[in-house]
């Protein structure tokens, strides 16, 4: 835990940590069920990386990562709806992985020169991992784009479902202006969103997937409102640790 962290830095890091935690947990649920064995192994590694990022970020905020990560009340989380989304079908998980990792890479590069001690080094390590994650998503989607009509339709369905949800990734926490002023992060979420939108649309156009850019955004209210899927996710995350929060598992 970093005792000298400002409230603004805490808010920004909490939102990032919760996103990494939820996305790692959601990706992890695919273990054993990937569409083929090589993919199963690859996606599981990505899930482990994201959980590792979550742990490193939570360590700025608490000395007890597990209790903090798993046992807060829903209104204390700052995850985006995209990270909370269940994505029970592979097309949804794959598209979410591509949208999220594009955004994640931008978020890490945005804290490369952060005023928060050690965050730049963490960002450098995470960016190396993220470059593999992005390559994985892009190579995969580009091949499906070259494949059959069914595959393209599955991806287009998932894009239509998830693109509006993904805009919530750029919903800033209330203290973001202060965090920028303190040098915690460089660019605003709005600036990052513009870069992300350009990269995402460039990919979609290059691959030839049909899409329409969403006009509505999830009603996250500065990430203070949880998605309708959060209760189910949190119940699962807490199921064992809540049996006896004093125990060492």
């Amino acid at each position, binding site marked *: 835990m970093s005792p000298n962290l400002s409230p603004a830095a805490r808010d920004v890091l909490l939102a990032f940590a919760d996103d990494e935690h939820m996305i790692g947990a959601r990706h992890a649920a695919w273990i054993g069920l990937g*569409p083929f064995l090589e993919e199963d192994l690859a996606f599981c590694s990505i899930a482990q990386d994201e959980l590792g990022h979550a742990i490193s970020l939570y360590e700025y905020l608490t000395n007890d990562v597990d209790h903090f990560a798993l046992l807060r009340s829903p209104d204390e989380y700052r995850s985006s709806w995209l990270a909370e989304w269940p994505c029970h079908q592979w097309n949804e998980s794959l598209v979410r992985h591509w949208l999220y990792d594009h955004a994640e890479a931008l978020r890490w590069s945005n804290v490369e020169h952060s005023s928060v001690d050690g965050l730049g080094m963490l960002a450098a390590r995470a960016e190396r991992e993220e470059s593999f994650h992005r390559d994985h998503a892009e190579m995969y989607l580009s091949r*499906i784009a070259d494949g*059959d009509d069914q595959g393209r339709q599955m991806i287009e369905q998932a894009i239509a479902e998830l693109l509006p949800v993904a805009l919530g990734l750029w919903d800033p926490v209330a203290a973001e202006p202060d965090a920028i002023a303190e040098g915690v992060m460089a660019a605003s979420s709005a600036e990052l969103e513009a870069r992300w939108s350009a990269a995402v649309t460039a990919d979609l156009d290059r691959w030839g997937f049909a899409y329409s850019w969403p006009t509505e955004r999830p009603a996250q209210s500065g990430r203070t409102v949880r998605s309708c899927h959060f209760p189910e996710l949190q119940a699962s995350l807490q199921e*064992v640790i809540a049996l006896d929060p004093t125990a060492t598992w």
Partner: protein
Amino acid sequence: MMSPAKSWSDLEEFQAFIDHGGPQQSPGIVEAGDDMPEEYRNEVFRFIEFHANSEMMGGLTERDWIPRAPGLRLKQIFLAKTQDEIGHAHLLYMVAADMGIKSRREILEDLFDGRSRFHNVFHYQAVTWADQIAIAFLVDAAAFASQRAVFAECSYGPYKRVLKRIIAEEGFHMRHGEEMLLRLSNGTDLQREMFQAALDRWWWPSVQLFGPDSPPDDNLLRWKIKSERNEVLRHAYVQKYVPLLHGYGFEIPDPDLRHEDGQWLMGDIDWEPLKATMRNGGPDSARRIETAARNWADTAWVRESLDAAIARRAA
């Protein structure tokens, strides 16, 4: 440089090679490209297919509790462990497919259609987090002992080489199981009760994993796929794990278990549960196979799309 393919005129000559056809009369090693007897090819293939399916279904047994892991590092650890199991399946399916009997896809589809078999322990459901620990402690240890006995003298080269890596990872899993059990045994009353209940569920399936006593004319022993008889491995397992579990303060669910002449002797083993699992009729067989089969069907579009992309790029 690859050695030229070997061939044998009859089973007698093949047996002589298996027994002492290697350098300095050591046991001979058969390679994938050799003209091996069909009986050997079929027997080894069935054994590796069973092992591969067991790694795959073992991964599915353990996956149920990963979302509910009581900590982020624990979730990473159990993910990595299950990833190892799926990775073992991946390696073994490649070794099996190279034998030219079934493709990897055919092997998987036989598994998901309920036409092939896998280890008895993976026909049971992990019903609490403590079951996850019992699997890591009891099942991984049983699998480790069993695989190490195969590796010791394994006559099929590709399998032996893959087993070297698998055993290294399984040894790590076993240590992980011990550490996890240590936490529960030093934990709260609830944790200890949970583990005792899990032990009650997993002890007998773990012991049964070694199988009934080996038949006197076991081809797997004769052809050095296995190096030890089932009952010998089972006995050694019991000698090690009974005192360990007693040491942690847990009771073995065997009222006839006794210590005589320096040895732990078990009560009679009921083999009916094992036989049921071999017919895919275990307590959780239907759900386990159905989950895998449904997922395989649901993700068929991915494989078909990627195949179409490869065909298009090749055209």
